[in-house]
C-alpha cells in the first residue's frame, strides 16, 4: 500500500509560503534585480503539481475516497477535492507568473507571493476538509488571506474601501456559519461530516434545527459565493484588487466558497430536494442580476466582476438540476463550467490586467480601465486583444469555445426527465447567455474596429512573462472547446462525489 500523498498538496504550498516571504524580504533588502520570491513560489508550485499528478493517479487507481487524519485534522480527497485542486493550481501558477512585472516595485511585493502561495494551499485544504469545524477554519483562513490581497494597494483609498467592505461582509457570514455549526453540534454531538450525514439520514426528529442550520449555511457561505442579495462586496473587491488577484478571486476563491457550502449542506440530509430548489432560485437570480448589472458598467474589471455573478448562476443551476432529479448530468456540467469559468475569467482578468499595466500603470496613471480606453487596441497589442476576445466570446458561450460546451451540458441536463420547470429554467439560462453577448460583443468591437485612442497610442509594451499566461490559457480554452471529452477525467468523479455527498 502506497503512502497517502494528497496531504502534501496542502503542505508544500503552506510550508514554502513563509520561506518565500523571507527570501523576498532579503531580496528587497539587498536590492536584487532578479525576483527570487517569485522563482521560489513557482518552484513550490511545480512540486505541488507533481504531487497532484501522483495522487490523482492513486485516486483513479483505487476508485475510492482517500482518507487522512492527523490529530484534529480530518481530510479526505474525493472527486470534488481534485477538481478544486486542479483549478487552484492551474490558475495560481499563471497568477504567480503574471504578477512578476505587474506588482514589481509596489510596497509589500515580498508579502504578495507568500500570501498567494498560502491561499492556494488553504483552498486545496478546504476542498479536502471532512470535518465541519475544520471546514470553517479553512474557510476563515482563506477569507483572511484574501482580505489582505484585496487591500494590497494600501496607499489607494478605493482599494482599502473594497478590502474593508469585503472583510465586514465576510466576517458576518462566517459568524452565521458558526451558529449553524453549533446547531449541528448541539443536535448530534459530533462534527465529523460522515457521522453527521449518517445520523441526519436516520433521525426523523429535529428537522427544524437542521433546516435552520441549512439556512445559516446558505446565507453565511453565500456571502463568499456572492449569492445575489449578498453580493455587494464582489464588484468592488474584484475591480480594486491587483489583476492577478482579481483572476484568483473570480476564478477560484468564490468557487471554493461554493464547495464549502455544498459540503456543509450535504451533511444535513433529508432536504436535498428543497436545497436543490433554493440553488435553482439563487441561480436564476444571479444569472439575471449579474447580466443586467454588467450591461450598465463602463469599467472593464467591474463588468467582468458582474459577469462572475451570472456564471455562478449557471453553475448553481447545474447543481440544482442534479439535486432535483438525481441524475449526475447537471452536476457534471456544473463541474465542467466551474473549470471553464476558471480558465475564461482568469484569462479575461489577465488580459485586461496586462492592458491596464501597459496603458495606465506603466505611465504612472492609477485609475480603473474604462471600456473606451481600449479603442483600437488590437492594432498595437494584437496578442492581448486576441486573447481577451477569445476569453470574452467563450464567456458569452460562442460555439467552438470551452464556455459553450459546459453551458450546453447544463442546458441538456435541464431537458432530461422533461420537468417543465427545469426546461423553463434551461431556456431562461440560454436566453441569459445570449443577453450576455450584449456586453461582451461591444468590447470586442471596440478592440478591433475603432480608431486608436490616445491612451493606446501612449501605451508601453507588454512584458513577455505576462504574455505566456495569456497564450497558454487561450490555447486551453480553444482545446477544451474542440475536445470537451478531455475534461471527463476530472468532471465525472466530481459529479459522482457530489451525488455521493448528498446520498444519492
Amino acid at each position, binding site marked *: 500500500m502506497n503512502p497517502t500523498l494528497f496531504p502534501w498538496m496542502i503542505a508544500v504550498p503552506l510550508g514554502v509560503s513563509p520561506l518565500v516571504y523571507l527570501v523576498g524580504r532579503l531580496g528587497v533588502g539587498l536590492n536584487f534585480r532578479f525576483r527570487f520570491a517569485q522563482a521560489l513560489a513557482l518552484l513550490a508550485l511545480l512540486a505541488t503539481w507533481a504531487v497532484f499528478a501522483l495522487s490523482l493517479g492513486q485516486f483513479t487507481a483505487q476508485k475510492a475516497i482517500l482518507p487522512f487524519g492527523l490529530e*484534529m485534522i480530518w481530510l479526505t480527497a474525493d472527486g470534488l477535492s481534485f477538481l478544486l485542486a486542479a483549478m487552484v493550481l492551474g490558475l495560481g501558477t499563471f497568477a504567480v507568473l503574471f504578477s512578476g512585472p505587474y506588482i514589481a516595485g509596489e510596497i509589500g511585493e515580498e508579502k504578495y507571493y507568500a500570501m498567494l502561495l498560502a491561499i492556494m494551499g488553504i483552498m486545496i485544504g478546504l476542498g479536502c476538509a471532512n470535518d465541519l*469545524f475544520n471546514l470553517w*477554519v479553512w474557510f*476563515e*483562513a482563506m*477569507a*483572511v488571506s484574501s*482580505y*489582505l490581497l484585496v*487591500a494590497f494597494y*494600501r*496607499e*489607494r*483609498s*478605493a482599494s*482599502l*474601501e*473594497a*478590502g*474593508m*467592505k469585503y*472583510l*465586514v461582509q465576510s*466576517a*458576518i457570514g462566517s*459568524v452565521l456559519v*458558526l*451558529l449553524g*455549526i*453549533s*446547531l449541528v*453540534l*448541539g*443536535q*448530534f*454531538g*459530533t*462534527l465529523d461530516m460522515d457521522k453527521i450525514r449518517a445520523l441526519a439520514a436516520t433521525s426523523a426528529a429535529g428537522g427544524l434545527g437542521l433546516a435552520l442550520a441549512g439556512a445559516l449555511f446558505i446565507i453565511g457561505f453565500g456571502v463568499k459565493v456572492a449569492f445575489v442579495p449578498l453580493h455587494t462586496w464582489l*464588484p*468592488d473587491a474584484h*475591480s*480594486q484588487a491587483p489583476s492577478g488577484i482579481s483572476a484568483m478571486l473570480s476564478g477560484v476563491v468564490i468557487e471554493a466558497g461554493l464547495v464549502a457550502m455544498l459540503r456543509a449542506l450535504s451533511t444535513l440530509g433529508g432536504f436535498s430536494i428543497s436545497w436543490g430548489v433554493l440553488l435553482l432560485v439563487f441561480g436564476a437570480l444571479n444569472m439575471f442580476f449579474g447580466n443586467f*448589472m454588467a450591461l*450598465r*458598467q463602463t469599467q472593464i474589471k*467591474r463588468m467582468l466582476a458582474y459577469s462572475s455573478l451570472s456564471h455562478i448562476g449557471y453553475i448553481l443551476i447545474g447543481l440544482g438540476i442534479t439535486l432535483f432529479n438525481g441524475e449526475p448530468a447537471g452536476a457534471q456540467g456544473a463541474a465542467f463550467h466551474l473549470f471553464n469559468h476558471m480558465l475564461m475569467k482568469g484569462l479575461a482578468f489577465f488580459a485586461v490586467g496586462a492592458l491596464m499595466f501597459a496603458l495606465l500603470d506603466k505611465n504612472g496613471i492609477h485609475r480603473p480601465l474604462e471600456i473606451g480606453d481600449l479603442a483600437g487596441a488590437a492594432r498595437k497589442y494584437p496578442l492581448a486583444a486576441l486573447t481577451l476576445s477569445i476569453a470574452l466570446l467563450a464567456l458569452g458561450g460562442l460555439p467552438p469555445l470551452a464556455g459553450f460546451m459546459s453551458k450546453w451540458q447544463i442546458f441538456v441536463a435541464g431537458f432530461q426527465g422533461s420537468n417543465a420547470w427545469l426546461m423553463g429554467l434551461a431556456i431562461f439560462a440560454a436566453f441569459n447567455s445570449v443577453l450576455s453577448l450584449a456586453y461582451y460583443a461591444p468590447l470586442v468591437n471596440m478592440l478591433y474596429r475603432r480608431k486608436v485612442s490616445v491612451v493606446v497610442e501612449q501605451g508601453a509594451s507588454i512584458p513577455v512573462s505576462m504574455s505566456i499566461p495569456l497564450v497558454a490559457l487561450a490555447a486551453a480554452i480553444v482545446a477544451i472547446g474542440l475536445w470537451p471529452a478531455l475534461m471527463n477525467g476530472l468532471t465525472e468523479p466530481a459529479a459522482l462525489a457530489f451525488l455521493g455527498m448528498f446520498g444519492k
Partner: protein
Amino acid sequence: MTLTILNAVLFSVVLLLAVGFYGLLITRNLIKIVVVLQTLVKAAIMALVLAGNTSGNPGLGQSAAATVLVADTVVAVVALALAVQVRRRAGTLDIARISTLRG
C-alpha cells in the same frame, strides 16, 4: 422556562446577537464596526460551548471555541490595520464619507 445555567447562556447568546446586529445597523465608525463584529463572534463562541455541553461532548465544543478565538483575533487585527490605513488616507473613519465605490 426556569433559569438554569444553560438557559442563561442561551439567553446571553441571543442578547449578544441582537446587540451585534443592531450595532451593525446604526454604526458608521470603522473602529466601532470592528467592536460590533467582535460582539457577534463572541455570541457564536458561546453558542459553540453551549452546543458542546448540551450534546454531551463538552471538550469538542470548547476546543472549537478556543480555535474560533484565535481566528477571530486575526480578523480583528487585519480589520484594525485596514482601519488605520483608511484613517491615514482618507482622514476620517466615517464609512459614509469614505465611500466612493458604487453601482
